[in-house]
């Protein structure tokens, strides 16, 4: 009933407005309506855009400019040095080069392991287990806690926990000085980030696995397909889009790692585990060399942006194909 009367109102109102549009009087009316609309637009979009421009856009573009200067933040005069900062980074700054290579190595290892573990956990949880809900919570739990706290938790595990497990079991792996050695400290960071990231990736794979139509799986089984064949030829292709999403999620989060790096090893021992984000931070806020820090940040941005552009183009292509 009320719907009906509303509709009538709409109709009658529309008809009443009709003659106004054609009348000559309506020109100033239209104009003020336009101004009103623009004002409304500014009122709705303005606050968010203003904060966004002030906090993100302007600092980003001034940052790009500073990458080509010798700005140190203390003295007032900032002079243009062209590509000197970049030349310095690629020829002299060994720490930067090492951090860069280390971050790439870490990213490669972390995405493979996080995705394998995450997918494996999703496969487990997707079975009709009695404890599946509890297990899902357990696997996801580390993801909830910020990287900083996780790094501290594992600092204790690597220093005291492993030592104790090593004594109890005699396994030499646990008796290594995990955070005190270049190689094992790197793997320490990998372990913590896989522990943190796998549960998140698991949730996405789980959602994809639940969308695999069961009748196809049943049909394949009746036709005599083995479990592995079902996984290889039905499940895997069906979750392929989720794989793309997860790969890129882990690439960009691994490449930007900072919190775990800071709290677990703080780049140590002897700066051997200092990843790119931490290296930029140190350059800027410890060494106070803003110009060089900005040059690093610009390279960092370009890599992240390139990853994202590739990601978007691949997912778009996939959408077209399907």
């Amino acid at each position, binding site marked *: 009933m009320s719907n009906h009367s509303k509709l009538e109102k709409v109709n009658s109102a529309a008809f009443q407005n009709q003659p106004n549009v054609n009348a000559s009087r309506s020109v100033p009316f239209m104009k003020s309506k336009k101004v009103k609309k623009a004002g409304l637009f500014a009122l709705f979009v303005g606050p968010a855009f203003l904060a966004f421009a002030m906090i993100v856009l302007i600092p*980003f573009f*001034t940052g790009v400019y500073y990458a080509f200067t010798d700005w140190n933040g203390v003295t007032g005069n900032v002079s243009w040095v062209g590509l000197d900062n970049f030349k310095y980074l690629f020829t002299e700054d060994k720490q930067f080069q090492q951090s860069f290579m280390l971050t790439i190595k870490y990213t490669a290892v972390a995405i493979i392991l996080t995705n394998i573990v995450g997918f494996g956990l999703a496969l487990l949880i997707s079975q009709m287990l009695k404890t599946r809900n509890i297990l899902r919570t357990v696997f996801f739990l580390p993801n909830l806690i910020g990287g900083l706290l996780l790094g501290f938790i594992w600092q204790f595990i690597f220093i005291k926990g492993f030592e104790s497990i090593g004594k109890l079991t005699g396994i030499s792996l646990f008796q290594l000085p995990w955070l005190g050695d270049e190689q094992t400290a790197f793997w320490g960071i990998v372990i913590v980030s896989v522990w943190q990231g796998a549960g998140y990736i698991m949730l996405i794979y789980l959602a994809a696995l639940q969308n695999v139509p069961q009748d196809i799986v049943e049909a394949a089984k009746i036709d005599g397909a083995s479990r592995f064949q079902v996984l290889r030829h039905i499940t895997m292709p069906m979750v392929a889009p989720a794989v793309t999403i997860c790969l890129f999620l882990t690439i960009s989060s691994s490449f930007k790692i900072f919190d775990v790096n800071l709290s677990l090893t703080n780049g140590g021992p002897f700066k051997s585990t200092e990843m790119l984000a931490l290296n930029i931070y140190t350059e800027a806020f410890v060494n106070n060399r803003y110009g060089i820090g900005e040059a690093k940040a610009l390279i960092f941005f370009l890599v992240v942006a390139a990853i994202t552009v590739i990601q978007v183009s691949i997912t778009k292509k996939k959408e077209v194909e399907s």
Partner: protein
Amino acid sequence: MENKYTGRTFIVEIIAILIGLVFLVPFYYVISNSLKTFADILTNTSALPSVLQWQNYVQAFERLDYLRVFTNSLIITVGSNVVLIIFCSMAAYMLVRTKKKISNIIFMTFVAAMVIPFQSIMIPLIKTAGNLGLLNSMWGLVIMYLGFGSGMTIFLYHGFIKGIPVELEEAAIIDGCSPFGVFWRIVFPLLKPITVTVMILNSLWIWNDYLLPSLVLQDPALRTIPLATFFFFGQYTKQWELALAGLVLSIIPLVIFFFSMQKHIIKGITSGSIK
């Protein structure tokens, strides 16, 4: 995937539980050792505490200034959520409903800027924030979170609002409802599912964020939980019992938040990631 609980499922279940226990081991170590004396930690790291040392928690609670840092974290997280939800839902709504080129340009700018990593912004941001009076102020930090969170938040709202039919709003306008009234009384209540997702994603990010608050809030009285934990852990690394009790105190609010909103969190995270 299986419909029957077979012997094979049972074996899988055992394996899954064992992996689950491995995932929980770090929590076991941290919690059990946070209740031991220092000597006990050194000699019996893996064992359960013989006598529960609750005073570790009392001390950590006081030295962390826990009530204050918890309140700071809460104010910042809630404040940022409120401004993000209000201004970004409004902006996204207007950008969807105004079919002009400018809407598209603004929206694409928000989305494209999501690519920019924080490290590429932080140096000029912190340098100019000082001039704008945004340093050492919780409200300054809230404004920064509005800036940083707006891309993702507008993106999520934008996608959701596109699916809402415009007819309802037109009827309300003709009934004499003001544009603000239309948005807040008619559109905003319809956005509830995405508002919950936005709130969860932003809360987890802001609550756990360390780097931005560490650069903005230099005054110890303004420290958030991650900041206070950072300084506390650095100060007491030789006193594990206090460091660990402080660590557990920092984790508790997150765990409570998670268990009270588990369903929404898991749904929000899966829908938020698949853009």
